[in-house]
């Protein structure tokens, strides 16, 4: 069935082709929301009063920031449109609005979403996010604390930048990720089950990333084998059984993702 939409507001629709947006940032911290405009795909915008103001309204969850991009006649390029106040520093939704001096909305885009390059798409639950900063000679490290919204895989800024300059961002470099991810998985499971001694059964129902990591690890086993449970005393009967389960989870992860094969193939290609 065809659905027709009627626009009784007189408001102009800003097409996606008019907007070129990306999240950028060369250091850790809030990224910049870089937006450039080309109004030619919607000629009627060019007929609007030249002093109409252009705004980019960025939001994520319960956070909001408005960026003023000047007027149609005198556009302003923002030097550092950092999303400091947004809840998320990896993705942002935004809407472009053109408004006249009395607050009348003359044109508006649909909502758009931009993501910082990372391996988690918005359709999947986030288990870890990437970050980068100066780590001396250390190539990467896992940062996980209970209060964190999501754990961080922190890459050495020098490595990250070099990979970007080569046009091969670390997040999409299968060779780099193949070297890192088995250790990340092992580190996460040890942190959850051994360092914090949380019960895996209880964690399985946890709605946060902690539960998501346990469910992810269980899903790696062909039979969804659960990790050893706590005894009534609240301790594990045998720590070695937990270590074995973690080791098996990592092996299954490597098997499923063909980690060594990727490394061998990648080595041949370099």
């Amino acid at each position, binding site marked *: 069935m065809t659905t027709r939409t009627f626009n009784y*507001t*007189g*408001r102009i629709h800003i097409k996606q082709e008019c907007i070129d947006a990306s999240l950028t940032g060369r250091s850790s911290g809030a990224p910049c929301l870089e937006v450039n405009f080309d109004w030619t795909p919607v000629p009627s915008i060019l007929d609007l009063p030249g002093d109409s*103001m252009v*705004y980019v*309204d960025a*939001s*994520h*969850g*319960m*956070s*909001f920031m*408005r960026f003023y991009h000047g007027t149609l006649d005198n556009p302003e390029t923002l030097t550092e449109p950092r999303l*400091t*106040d*947004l*809840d*998320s*520093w*990896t*993705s942002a*939704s935004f809407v472009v*609005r053109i*408004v006249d001096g*009395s*607050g*009348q*909305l003359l044109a508006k885009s649909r909502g758009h*979403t931009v993501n910082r390059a990372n391996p*988690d*798409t*918005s*359709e*999947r*639950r*986030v288990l870890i996010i990437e970050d980068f900063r100066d780590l001396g000679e250390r190539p990467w490290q896992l940062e996980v*604390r*209970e*209060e964190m*919204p*999501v754990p961080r895989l922190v890459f050495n800024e020098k490595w990250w930048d070099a990979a970007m300059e080569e046009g091969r961002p670390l997040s999409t470099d299968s060779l780099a990720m193949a070297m890192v991810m088995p250790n990340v998985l092992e580190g996460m499971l040890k942190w959850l089950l051994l360092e914090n001694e*949380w019960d895996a059964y*209880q*964690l399985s129902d*946890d*709605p*946060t*990333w*902690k539960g998501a990591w346990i469910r992810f690890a269980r899903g790696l086993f062909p039979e969804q084998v659960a990790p050893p449970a706590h005894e009534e005393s609240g301790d594990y009967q045998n720590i070695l059984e937990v270590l074995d389960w973690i080791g098996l989870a990592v092996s299954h992860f490597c098997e499923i993702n063909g980690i060594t094969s990727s490394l061998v193939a990648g080595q041949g290609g370099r």
Partner: protein
Amino acid sequence: MRVLNEMGLQQYRTFLEEVCEEGGEAPSHLLHDDGFSRSYSRYINLDEEAVFETKQELGRYLSERLEEAGVPRHEASKDRALWASVTLLYFDQFCPLTPEGTRSVPQERQDPNERYPKFIPRIVERGGELSLRGRRHYALGPYLIYEYNKDTHHKADVLLSGSLNAWGNDVEQTAGRIEVISNKNLIEVIRMLYWNEDGLIPGYGNSDRAGSIHRLLADLRNQMKLTQDWYSMTPQDIYDSLPSEYDEWKS
């Protein structure tokens, strides 16, 4: 400040479920027990003896203490353990004893994920990332509303008036909408319409009444945003553009 760990959150939930309504004493000892809590990663200096007359006082206090500790809003607003711990720390103010020695414990019986979202924030997933639903939380809600309006002269005094456990339709309607709490001009309009020297004008929160705050923030705002941009209009311009159903509130 110390914050509850997963075990502590579970114990807190058990208290809310089993003995709170009978007037049981809040399990504040959980915040001093390494088995149930831990030190926060930064030093937040909250005075356990502090008393808050209004939600605005609470919002201001938390905003200032977190800023002093270097905890940015985007980080604090995602930390479930932090906000659950704040309600436990000041539990008798959020859930006071009645003269009969019982407590009225607000809960969401139908919510399978978090039955006590006023005390333990409910986790929601947005765009693949986890965040907290502040609109229902006794401490996170006032903190967010205050944070967005701390640079205004009114500092959201209307919305954050009343005691910590007074949680009306206005707070729910406001705290749950980022397009409302982040719009200082609109918050000022709310003040111009529903506030006088005696405080909030009775009836402002009655959703069935013409010109109520519910109508303003839900129905009218959704309609007006099709043609107007309230962020770029002055409070007086918004006020003057309101339809006739608001006339009785203007007088």
